[in-house]
């Protein structure tokens, strides 16, 4: 008790002391300090003149001179928040603590010459590499809030989406998707259940903040599938900012009356930095130009927590937790019983089930939960060496509901839980010769278990898998060149318990062991500051995935029975890429990325199998098979800065994917796509209410032309009076897709407001997209107006 009193007394003394001391400090303030700064372009290093510099605390501002310099005088010691904004640049907010002396800052902004319609080339902002890397920044993601991961990555040339309606989509990068693309979520291989094209990656882009796509065989340092591209999804680093800040984003879409809100809060007091990020989104039934898409609604609630602690200058640790929870409606019209149903819908040209829309989500639907917890620690041994460890656990729960007889619709017809444990260690060393070495070891364990009580034999069997991998990458800069070399080895063990379909039904076990090797070598040569060439050659192998080996059952959405082949061998691929990036007088900038990939034992789902007649009717049997294949393509992008406020942009994505063994086009190959857009940014701030101004007002009109697929017509078989008959469905016709987007910023004293708005499918065009699996049943979404309001505080 005495001790407590003593402590209290001490505390009181301290408080009293503070009251006395604080005014003294206040009075003795030296308000004659100066803050100077220099603003330059993050890519070229060139100074950025005429940037608005605004100090929230003093409500005063200035403009940088023609050399990018600015000066703020008569500042008192204290904490300041400074906002930099410039036409064509992303506005940037920084925190400065001014003590007893003048401060000089070197600041960098991302300038629009390299900001190709918001898709920043990370070769300018990130580490130099011989790989083709493109990054989608936080602003672009926020401006497109409400879109899923696949639809956001689609803004990169050469990336398309294979989708099931509007809410389910997975990215196709340079013709590859699914098991050939690895998604690295915050450094950890995303462990979702990517069994089919109707399974979307379980990631909220708003929670992620930053998305990069490495198009080459680059992901050598990541456990996964280095045969195709790698998508890196990263949350932003927590800003070194001792005050509580954040932003909130409300977004609305007229089509489907979709509403969503995202809130991000972050603070970095001296010891621990934290960030919380949450999204809630709800959408009702969407509509096409002619009818509503009944049961196409979505509900989503996601949350992420980030903690960072600096134990010392050398040891940094962060913890990340995210939870992703979604319920996705599958349009009622897409549930069919057999090829006969498909024929009826195809002949009718419109679905049987239409009507007025609602927010209800009934079966058929998917309910997916994905939880990730990750621990990362990095220790800098000295200025040239560091080690890092990662430990992560993931739980993915997928439940799929169908329209079922006998009141079973509320019971999932597929219920799978997948647990994943990941452990990785990385070592990095920079040698004095300019050589960088990165090496690591990784282990991943997956346990996939069907949950009992579905009343349906599982499509994917129960299994466990152990994967161990090691890698080394070397990078060396020499004069104007960068050389890269990397190699990786993985060993995978699969223990699988399948259930046979022939009678008597029994359990059959398989134990597989696979070895995979990947190597990659590249060269980047900067001919001059305005032109550089990169070349990359890679070889990679990939073992067949569980669904390719053992899937077994009815895939109602496509009137097909899908069967894996337990005898599939490793797929091997040789890929070479050539990239050229450059600009002419910073007015015209361009980027070309050509690739050629040759496959041996390419695994694909062959729809030209035999026919099986079951109770529901006739079904095509889709078998996973192997063939030799090749994919060649070219991604082109060019922008022309007509005036500082007018930009023209054009892209082309050309692809040719062949099954050499059968001499036809590979199914689900994206079609050639061309886009053209014009962006106008008003050069000055527009006076708004009172002293408030609309800054960076910008409008973009964009047209996308998607050409017709060159794949063969799909043939379906049905029986009429025991006679075998067939009908064919041709790939959909080419279409144009016109959209408009506009945005502006308003600076308040301490907060900054951003308003975005737009219209997609302005002409309300009726079209079907080859890569949309619901095209068999319905036309695509019609006109859609979007609105976004974002407040940074």
């Amino acid at each position: 008790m005495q001790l407590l009193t003593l402590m209290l007394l001490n505390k009181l003394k301290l408080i009293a002391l503070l009251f006395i001391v604080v005014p003294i400090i206040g009075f003795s303030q030296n308000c004659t300090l100066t803050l100077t700064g220099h603003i330059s372009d993050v890519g070229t290093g060139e100074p950025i003149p005429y940037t608005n510099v605004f100090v929230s605390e003093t409500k005063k501002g200035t403009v940088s001179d023609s050399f990018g310099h600015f000066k703020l005088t008569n500042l008192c010691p204290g904490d300041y928040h400074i906002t930099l904004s410039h036409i064509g640049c992303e506005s940037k907010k920084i925190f400065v603590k001014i003590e007893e002396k003048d401060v000089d800052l070197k600041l960098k902004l991302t300038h629009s010459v390299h900001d190709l319609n918001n898709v920043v080339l990370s070769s300018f902002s990130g580490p130099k590499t011989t790989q083709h890397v493109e990054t989608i920044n936080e602003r672009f993601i926020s401006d497109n809030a409400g879109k899923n991961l696949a639809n956001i990555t689609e803004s990169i040339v050469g990336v398309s989406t294979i989708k099931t309606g509007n809410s389910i989509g997975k990215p196709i990068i340079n013709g590859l998707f699914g098991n050939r693309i690895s998604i690295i979520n915050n450094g950890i291989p995303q462990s979702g259940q990517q069994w089919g094209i109707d399974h979307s990656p379980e990631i909220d882009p708003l929670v992620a903040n930053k998305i990069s796509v490495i198009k080459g065989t680059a992901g050598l340092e990541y456990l996964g599938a280095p045969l195709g591209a790698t998508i890196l999804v990263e949350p932003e680093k927590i800003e070194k900012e001792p005050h509580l800040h954040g932003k909130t984003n409300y977004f609305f879409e007229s089509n489907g009356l979709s509403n969503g809100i995202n809130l991000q809060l972050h603070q970095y007091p001296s010891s621990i930095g934290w960030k919380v990020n949450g999204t809630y989104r709800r959408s009702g039934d969407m509509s096409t130009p002619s009818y509503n898409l009944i049961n196409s609604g979505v509900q989503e609630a996601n949350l992420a927590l980030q903690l960072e602690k600096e134990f010392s200058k050398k040891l940094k640790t962060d913890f990340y937790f995210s939870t992703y929870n979604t319920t996705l409606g599958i349009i009622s019209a897409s549930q069919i019983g057999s090829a006969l149903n498909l024929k009826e819908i195809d002949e009718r040209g419109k679905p049987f089930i239409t009507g007025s829309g609602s927010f209800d989500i009934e079966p058929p639907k998917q309910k997916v939960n994905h939880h990730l917890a990750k621990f990362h620690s990095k220790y800098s041994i000295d200025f040239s060496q560091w080690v890092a460890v990662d430990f992560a656990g993931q739980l993915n729960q997928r439940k799929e509901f169908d329209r079922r007889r006998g009141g079973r619709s509320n019971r999932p017809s597929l219920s799978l839980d997948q647990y994943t444990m990941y452990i990785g260690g990385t070592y990095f060393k920079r040698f004095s010769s300019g050589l960088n070495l990165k090496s690591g070891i990784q282990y991943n364990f997956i346990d996939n278990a069907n949950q009992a009580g579905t009343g349906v034999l599982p499509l994917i069997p129960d299994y466990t898998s152990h994967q161990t991998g090691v890698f080394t990458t070397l990078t060396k800069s020499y004069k104007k060149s960068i050389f890269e070399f990397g190699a990786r080895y993985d060993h995978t063990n699969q223990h699988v318990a399948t259930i046979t379909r022939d009678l008597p039904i029994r359990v059959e076990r398989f134990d597989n062991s696979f070895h995979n090797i990947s190597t990659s070598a590249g060269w980047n040569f900067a001919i001059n500051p305005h032109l550089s060439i990169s070349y990359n050659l890679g070889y990679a192998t990939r073992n067949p995935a569980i669904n390719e080996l053992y899937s077994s059952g009815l895939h109602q959405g496509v009137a097909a029975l899908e069967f894996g082949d337990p005898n599939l061998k490793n797929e091997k691929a040789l890929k070479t890429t050539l990239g050229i990036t450059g600009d002419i007088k910073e007015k015209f900038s361009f980027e070309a990325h050509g690739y050629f990939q040759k496959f041996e034992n390419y695994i694909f789902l062959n729809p030209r199998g035999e026919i099986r007649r079951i109770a529901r009717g006739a079904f095509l049997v889709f078998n996973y098979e192997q063939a030799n294949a090749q994919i060649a393509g070219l991604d082109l992008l060019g922008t022309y800065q007509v005036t500082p406020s007018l930009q023209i942009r054009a892209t082309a994505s050309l692809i040719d994917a062949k099954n050499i063994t059968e001499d036809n086009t590979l199914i689900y190959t994206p079609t050639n796509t061309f886009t053209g857009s014009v962006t106008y940014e008003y050069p000055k701030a527009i006076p708004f209410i009172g002293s408030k101004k609309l800054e960076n007002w910008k409008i973009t009109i964009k047209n996308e032309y998607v050409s017709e697929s060159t794949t063969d017509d799909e043939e379906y078989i049905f029986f009429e009076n025991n006679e075998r008959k067939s009908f064919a469905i041709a790939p959909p016709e080419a279409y144009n897709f016109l959209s408009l987007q506009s945005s502006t910023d308003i600076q308040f004293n301490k907060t900054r407001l951003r308003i975005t708005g737009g219209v997609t499918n302005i002409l309300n065009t009726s079209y079907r997209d080859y890569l949309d699996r619901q095209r068999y049943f319905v036309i695509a979404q019609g006109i859609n107006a979007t609105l976004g309001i974002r407040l940074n505080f």
Partner: protein
Amino acid sequence: MKTKSILLALCGLAISFNSCSDDDDNDPVIENEEEVITNVNFTLTADGADPVTFTWVDADGEGPAEAVAVGGTLKANTTYSAKLELSNVQNGETEDVTEEIEEEDEEHQLFYSTNISGLSVTYTDKDGEGNPIGLETELKTGAAGKGTITIFLRHEPNKSAEGVAEGNIANAGGVNELDATFDVDVVE
């Protein structure tokens, strides 16, 4: 030092996960396929004619074995009353699908299609809303002839669409749950 201890802890965790990972030795649960129809009996009775039962059996459901359909011989110019029974037999357990259809009669309808001239099927049963179900029907034969009768079961058809109540499947929509064809001989 701290890194070392973290690394050690991680290794420990890795080992413990590795060792607990062999719990997949338990056999997976073999679900009873509840949605499947494995047996169909179509029984026809008439005054002055022998009763006939068409049978359709697909014991392995969605498995590789083909269904076996056995039709029969009908008497020309005769009115039969027909009854359809469907069931799901899995591992010796029988589930009455007819009962399920009766319970959800408004969500189901059977359709009969034939290429035998003069043969017609009319509904004799009604669901709660007065629309036909098709479990009970009247089958009329005309002149002698040979052909097939196909029975379709549709889940969630649009019963109010044009012609559906009269047995025309074209505008019905819904999901096919049965598509069974029988060879039928109509004799004098």
